[in-house]
Each structure stands twice: as structure tokens, then as C-alpha cells.
């Protein structure tokens, strides 16, 4: 096995980070158009995971995650515009269903793609102000069958969001002084930061591995996707607790951009089964 990102992949990561920072604050349509123009939707699984990590880092508000990792693996093609999919058998919490142009439905007879507008999707208010989650009323019977890529995509997004939390925490504890010293010089703080780092590295490695097994259609791909989703969930649990705690009251405010990364990471764990569900799946 070889497991080192190459120069092109590193460059892609940098490009995504810079592009996302540049279009931040622009109208959502414009952001989305930029992502499409750069061909990110067509990226192969590993590159897609890198893109999603960066979008997670930025707590990106676009429907990219649902389009690339929910719609595409089910429909087997790119949507007209944006897309999402219903593969949980009921359609109670569907990412971006309120705004997707096309929705792929997993039914007993296979996959059907319908226009999003026809599903009477209802956006559900959630804690994360940038996240779109909706409930749909299915036109017929639905069945469950979660694609490996959907789990991997949520894991990659969570990993990126966790890295953002850690970066914000590091910047904060380096500059904030209490008791005459930067907070980051206290060992209780250092050890939490180190544990966050290790948890992120672990989850990221398993996420890249899951993407790689999908890219090579390796027989381990479903197990790898469960591992990635579980590891990302475990990671966000630690990073959320330590990250918010180490910011003190500053982390408890609406103004702080920490909230977006925290909420994105936690939402990625809650959607399509938390860490515990995926650990159980690994045992069966």
C-alpha cells in the first residue's frame, strides 16, 4: 500500500481552500456556479474527499455534499443543477431536499429520479444556520441502502470541520493570556490539543482509506466507509467538547465563527447514523 498524497492532490486542497475563502459571502448561486465550473463534482472519490474536507473546513453552505455524495452515487450521473437522494427508507432528514433540483429515490424497483419541486419538501429548522435538512413526502414506497460514498462524504466533511475547530482553538490559546501566560502554555490545554490532533489524524486516515477503496472498488469498501463514519463521529465528539471548552465564554457566542464548524461536525455525526451505529455495523 502507498498512502501519501501526491503534489497534485496537495495542490487541489490548496486551490479549494483558497477558492472557498474567495467566494465566501457571495450569493450562494455564485458560489455554487464556481464549484461547478472548477469541475469538483466530477472529482474521483479521493479527490472528492479532499474537496469535501475543505468545504467542511469552511462550513460551506452550498448543496455540494448532497449533490456529489448522495445524488451522484445513486443516480449514476450528475444532476441538472443540484441534487440529493433519499436512501434511508423514509425521507425524514434529507440533506438539501428543500432546494435540490433533482432528487434520486431508492424504491423497491430501483432508483427513480424526480424533480425536487415535486416532492413538497419541507425544510426543518436546525441549530446549524447554514445546513439545509428537509423532510419529504415520498410518492411511493422507499427502501434503505446507503451508498459508501455518502458515509465517506459526511466523514470527510466532519474531518474538515474538526480541523477548523482545532485551528481556531490553537490561534486562540496562543494569543489569549491569563495568569500572565498564554493559555497554550498550560499543559492541561496542550494535552487536549494533542488529543484533538491525534483524533483528527486517525479519522482523516480512515476517510482517505474509505475513498481509496471506493476508487479502486476494493471489497473492503463498505467496511472502510463504516470505519470512516465512525471515526469521524468519535473525532467530532472529542473535538466539539475540547474545542468549545478551551474557548471559554467566547466560544459560547453567536459572533464566533467557531459555531459553524462545531455544528457542521456534529451534524455530520448525527446524519446517517452516529459513531455507535457504525461501530455496530462493523461487528455484524
Amino acid at each position: 500500500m502507498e498512502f501519501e498524497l501526491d503534489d497534485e492532490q496537495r495542490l487541489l486542497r490548496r486551490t479549494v481552500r483558497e477558492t472557498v475563502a474567495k467566494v465566501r459571502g457571495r450569493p450562494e448561486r455564485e458560489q455554487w456556479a464556481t464549484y461547478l465550473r472548477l469541475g469538483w463534482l466530477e472529482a474521483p472519490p479521493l479527490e472528492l474527499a479532499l474537496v469535501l474536507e475543505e468545504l467542511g473546513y469552511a462550513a460551506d453552505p452550498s448543496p455540494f455534499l448532497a449533490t456529489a455524495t448522495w445524488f451522484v452515487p445513486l443516480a449514476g450521473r450528475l444532476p441538472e443543477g443540484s441534487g440529493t437522494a433519499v436512501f434511508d427508507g423514509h425521507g425524514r432528514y434529507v440533506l438539501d431536499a428543500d432546494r435540490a433540483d433533482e432528487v434520486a429515490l431508492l424504491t423497491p424497483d430501483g432508483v427513480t429520479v424526480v424533480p425536487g419541486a415535486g416532492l413538497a419538501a419541507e425544510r426543518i429548522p436546525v441549530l446549524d444556520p447554514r445546513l439545509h435538512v428537509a423532510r419529504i413526502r415520498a410518492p411511493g414506497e422507499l427502501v434503505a441502502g446507503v451508498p459508501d460514498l455518502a458515509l465517506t462524504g459526511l466523514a470527510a466533511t466532519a474531518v474538515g470541520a474538526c480541523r477548523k475547530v482545532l485551528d481556531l482553538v490553537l490561534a486562540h490559546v496562543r494569543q489569549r493570556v491569563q495568569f500572565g501566560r498564554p493559555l497554550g502554555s498550560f499543559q492541561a490545554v496542550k494535552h487536549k490539543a494533542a488529543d484533538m490532533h491525534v483524533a483528527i489524524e486517525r479519522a482523516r486516515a480512515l476517510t482517505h482509506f474509505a475513498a481509496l477503496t471506493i476508487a479502486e472498488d476494493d471489497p473492503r469498501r463498505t467496511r472502510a466507509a463504516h470505519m470512516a463514519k465512525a471515526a469521524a463521529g468519535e473525532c467530532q465528539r472529542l473535538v466539539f467538547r475540547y474545542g468549545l471548552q478551551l474557548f471559554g465564554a467566547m466560544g459560547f457566542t453567536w459572533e464566533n465563527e467557531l459555531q459553524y464548524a462545531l455544528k457542521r461536525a456534529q451534524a455530520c455525526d448525527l446524519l446517517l447514523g452516529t459513531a455507535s451505529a457504525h461501530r455496530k455495523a462493523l461487528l455484524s
Partner: protein
Amino acid sequence: MMRLADDPGVAAFRTEFAAFLDAHLPAEAEARERPRSSAHVPGWARRWQRTLFDHGWLLPGRPPEYGGRHATLPQQLAHLEELADRRIYHSFNPQGLGIVAASLLTFGTEEQKARWAVPILRAEITAALGMSEPEAGSDLASLRTRAVLDGDAFVVDGQKIWTSGAHDADVLLTFVRTDPDAPRHRGISALLIPTGTEGVVRRPFGSIAAEDDLDFNEVFLTGVRVPRENLVGPLNEGWRVANGSLGHERTLLWLSYAERLADLVRDAAGRGDDQEWYATLQMDLQALRLLGHRRLGPDRDPAEVSVLKLLGSEAVQNASLHALEAAGADALPHPARTGPHHHMNNEDFVSSWFERYARSFAGTIAGGTSEIQRNIIAERLLGLPR
């Protein structure tokens, strides 16, 4: 490059080594005498190590005269993976091979390599590592054992502790203070001290597992005269030797944790009612292997190895604790067998779950504790102030 398959050069290397192992592994009957300590190597194990040395399969990254074949780092990893998969060791004197001989090959003179390193590699002699002292554990740079130059010899006075296998070793790589006036890290030197030298007293003592499990030693050094030519590396540059030798050792050290985790995956399957920890164990093993492979690049930061050590040693401890709890009172009888018989390292598995858990603390304490690894990660990788 990211791919599941080995690079062709690594794949061919792996196949060749696997064939060698199949042809040369010691037979079960031969391997009856067991090692008593980490520097006691029974005759059959010496012959085994010598065979590896002669065929360039002992330390494949080294040139042939040192038991290697100029292998690349990914090939060296494949070599250790093949050994680990079969649960066999290339040497039963791991610190002699991995730390003492490795330091000599990096820092030693040609004479030192011929006089000490090659015999260690050929399993003709064994070695132990004398770093820690009663007052210098994590804070190694505070070590006090003194060495004073007197003509053509150093005279050494002081005490080492925890020196694994010292009572069975022929030579100690010892870190001593040669300049008490210099800043702490600058006044340290590395000396080879043959254990038969007058004034060297070794007292082995039991580990947590058993009073007669003798690997730990106290080593008392009183007026020990050591020839000047036994100085390893330049005078007062022992700190560099210490970091270099441990650094070399650490690059692939994570594999020993991966091996332990793989043992646990095998031995702890299906234990207990709530088995989510067993899934976590499998994830830890997979993540450790992935990160271990990722750390092979030339631009690797040495501090990255701390991530692997912390992740691996803590994962072993967590999983051992879960396996212990799953066993409940069945973990009490001791000794007990919790793993399959393997003739080359049978003692690893003649261990109750209680003992396996207790032994997992060697991983989180020796070679830099988990707390020290967290300090390194926070300060060197994450840039937090000291």
C-alpha cells in the same frame, strides 16, 4: 501516491522475503529453550538471527556488511510486516539491534562498528541501553552518572535503572555526564561499557507480572574504568546520539503496537456483551497502519512519530482493558493462555487478560510516556508555547 497495492519494487521484495522465511524458520523442536530476558538469546535464536544477517535480511536498509541489502524505507516496512504477520522476531535482543547497534552504525567509528556493532548484529553478543536513572526518567537530560577522563580512560560513577536485560547483556550503551558545567544537554556523552568491567554491579528485579520475571535492572557503576575509544560520537555530543538512536528506532516502532493490536483483534473476538470497543480496536489498527505508511515520506517531521506512538500505545491499552472487563473474573487465574500457541514467541500468549492489561503500560511509559508524547505533539507539531 495513494493506492492499495504495493509499489512493484516493494511487492517483489516482500515475495522474496516471504519465500526466505518459509525456507528458513526454526523448527518447533529447536525453539524449546525460551529467552529469559530481552538480552538473553538462546542458541537457536542466535543461529536464526545469524542466518538473517548472512542473507541480508536482518536490517535490510543497511549495506550487506551490516546484514542488509540497501532496501528502501517502504521495503523495510514490508520486511517488518512480514515478520509481524508470522509473529516472529528477527532478534530477541531488540534494544541491542534496534538502538545500540543502530547508534553505532550512525555515530560510531569503523573500529567500533567492527568490534561491537557487527557482533551484536550477528548475535554473538547482546547489549542493553543505560539511559534512565533514579532521578532522570522523562527528564533524561538531568542525568547525573559522571564520567571523568583520567589518562586514556573514563572513570564512571553513578547509577542506572530500568536497564532492560542488563544482567544478561555483554555491553551497555550508557549515557553519562562528561561536562557538569555545560548546559544540561551539552555535557552528556555516550559510552560503551562492557558489563564484565570491574566496578559494574547489576541487580535484576521483578516486573509487575512476576517476581521472577527478570528484565529490569539496577546498574551500579563505581570507579569503572572505560577505555577512551569506547566513546560513541564526539565528547559532549551524547544528546545527539540519544536522539538519533531513539529516532531511528522510533520510525518503525509503531509496527510493534500494530502487532499487539492485531493480536488483540485475533484473541479478543466475540468477548463480552457490548462489543463496540472491538470495532474501535479494528479502527485503531487500520488507522495506525495507514498513518504509519503515510509517515514514510522524506519530508517527515520526526515529531510525527509521536502521533503514532501515542495512538498505538493508548489503543493497545484501551483494548486490553476492554478485553479484561469482558473476561470478568475469568481474567483472575494466572498464568493462563489467551492466545494461540506459537513456537517462536509463545510467552506472549501465556498471559491472562489481567497480565496483558498490566503489560500494556510498558507501551505508555517506556520510550517517552504518553504525557511526553502529548507535549511533543502540542509544542512541535501544533506550535504551542513551551
